[in-house]
């Protein structure tokens, strides 16, 4: 996965709660056997109207076409497990999401691909969303090492992250390789489990 250290760029507010993975990646883009072409799919039904960019959608507005962070509403990524939603956001250039709560499978999918999710209290998220809603003050930088969001429009916001998750984002390590270090433990565990539960 892509490591994450410090990233700077435009942030766009997207505050509607419960934005689901069907909205993030509509079904028409789920029929591949690889990860290609999903940037076009991301928010497709909101971004485009009869094939033309929808001028009302935030990512099509002046000042937001190079967005790399989204400031999102509660429960972002709910619904289907489709990891295509995360691949599509990344292919659209999104590197991090700032919100209150993220849906569980989506959050794991983000972590497995190096898309950083930052959870903060609702007032703080609302404050950041208000600042970046103005195209003149919509740039910020996220420093994972320092666990800080620096807002060009003013202020810095610290954010929490579990040490293991932080380490994984910083190194971009391959989770499977890390786990296979414990192959002997897995084998021993499995033999014990099958002995205790022979019906499995």
């Amino acid at each position, binding site marked *: 996965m892509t490591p994450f250290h410090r990233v700077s760029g435009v942030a766009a507010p997207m505050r509607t*709660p419960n934005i689901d993975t069907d909205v993030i990646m509509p079904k028409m883009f789920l029929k591949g056997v690889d990860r290609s072409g999903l940037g076009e799919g991301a928010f497709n039904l909101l971004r485009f109207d009869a094939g033309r960019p929808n001028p009302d959608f935030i990512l099509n507005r002046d000042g937001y076409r190079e967005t790399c962070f989204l400031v999102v509403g509660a429960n972002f990524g709910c*619904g289907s*497990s489709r*990891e295509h939603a995360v691949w599509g956001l990344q292919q659209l250039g999104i590197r991090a999401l700032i919100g209150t*709560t993220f849906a569980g*499978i989506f959050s794991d999918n983000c972590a497995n691909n190096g898309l950083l999710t930052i959870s903060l209290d609702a007032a703080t998220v609302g404050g950041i969303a208000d600042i970046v809603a103005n195209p003149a003050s919509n740039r910020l930088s996220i420093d994972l090492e320092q666990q800080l969001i620096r807002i060009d429009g003013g202020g810095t916001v610290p954010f929490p992250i579990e040490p293991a998750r932080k380490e994984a984002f910083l190194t971009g390590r391959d989770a499977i390789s890390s786990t296979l270090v414990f192959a002997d433990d897995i084998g021993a565990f499995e033999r014990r489990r099958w002995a205790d539960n022979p019906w*499995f």
Partner: protein
Amino acid sequence: MSGRTLYDKLIDAHVVRRLDDDGLVLLYVDRTVLNEYTSPQAFAGLRATGRKVRNPAAALMVVDHVNPTAARRTRQMPDADAARQVDYFADNARDFGIEYFDILDPRQGIEHVVAPEQGLVMPGMVIAAGDSHTTAYGAFGALGYGIGTSDIEHYLATSTVRYRRLKTMRINVTGSPPLGVTPKDVVMEIICRIGADGATGYAVEFAGPAVAEMSVEGRIVMSIMIVEAGARGVVIAPDHKVLDYLKGRPRTPKGEMWDRATAAWLQLRSDADARFDREMTIDAGEVAPLVTWGTSPDQAIPVTDLIPDPDTNPAADRKTAATRALAYMGLAPGTPIQSVPIDFAFIGSCTNSRIEDLRDAAQIFRGRHVASGVRAIVVPGSTQVRAQAEAEGIAKILIDAGVEWRQSGCSMCLAMNDDILAPGQRSASSTNRNFEGRQGPGARTHLMSPAMVAAAAVTGRITDVRELLGGDAP
């Protein structure tokens, strides 16, 4: 020290090793089931790194998401993309040595219907699969939960998943559901009360006398649908109903081994003094048939109610969301939901496509006919369910009522196949999700129980099923 919850017992029994001090563990996963649309990139990853599937016998592959449901089955997929996914799926099954049910297999069906049918799911297991509705297996006293494609690959390569322990929530269901009220209505009521993120970060245990009274299939409905409140895992203590359901299935133990297994399974329950992070109680006797009016599963009301006014919602973001939802749905506040006409009726999906669901629907369709201008389709959860419904005479009742009797698949739950609504079309649907575009771009979905869908199909509008059951509608 207080006792342990069933969830914690299942996790404790599957921890290979701790990975940090915050609850991150390497969790052994007993089984998985794979579908053709979330698995391809996982297999591609294994191929690219030269890794093998560690335990192919622990997996089952079933085509369900992209296949057509037309009555006449052929191996040919209707479009090139679906064909490529199914071909690649078959290649992966062959090359990695995993059992595979193709579209013509008499055991084919929706993965979460097929896995229990085959006895792949047993109490005490942890089952992770690439579909959010894997929580279905909670109904059997197994911990089921959904994972993404990266974690499918991780599981296939290692038999484990990196897992962070969840908080626990017990939902006690008391009382008896009145006539016309089903487990679907009960779980929709729970989602309304706690919200679409009310169980985010939690594993849910369903308990209480109404759950004990409920059939295994009813418990499956609850276990699947609570995902729409954000639950990441579900457990229900297994009982004799679960044993009756599993006995004699192809993969469940037989003879003396069955006796040993069931003795152990019946011990699986939360300790009396176990503490949950959150508890709630709901009286099933007070639940009415529910219908969604919006584009989130928590936007639902009793069928007798009026569509709510977003302006009465105190939270600004919820108000905006409700306003947007009503615009998408083409509905006005204050309208009786029962006056809303439908174009399409769909009974199917892993939530509501089992034999009991089809019996409920048949009870409404018997001697009636689908209303003029409405198209109704019933997609059984598996080819075995289809055969059973035909043997019981249910299929004939449906066909006589003007319903299209289909082959099995996920179909219009997510409309990845050719069962898809046109923009603006409105459906009564027994599925889980009423998201924008879920059943087709611009399509409008009202979630409800299978019997309620049948009632809407025969009247042509959203209808209180109790009026057709001869019960006392309020």
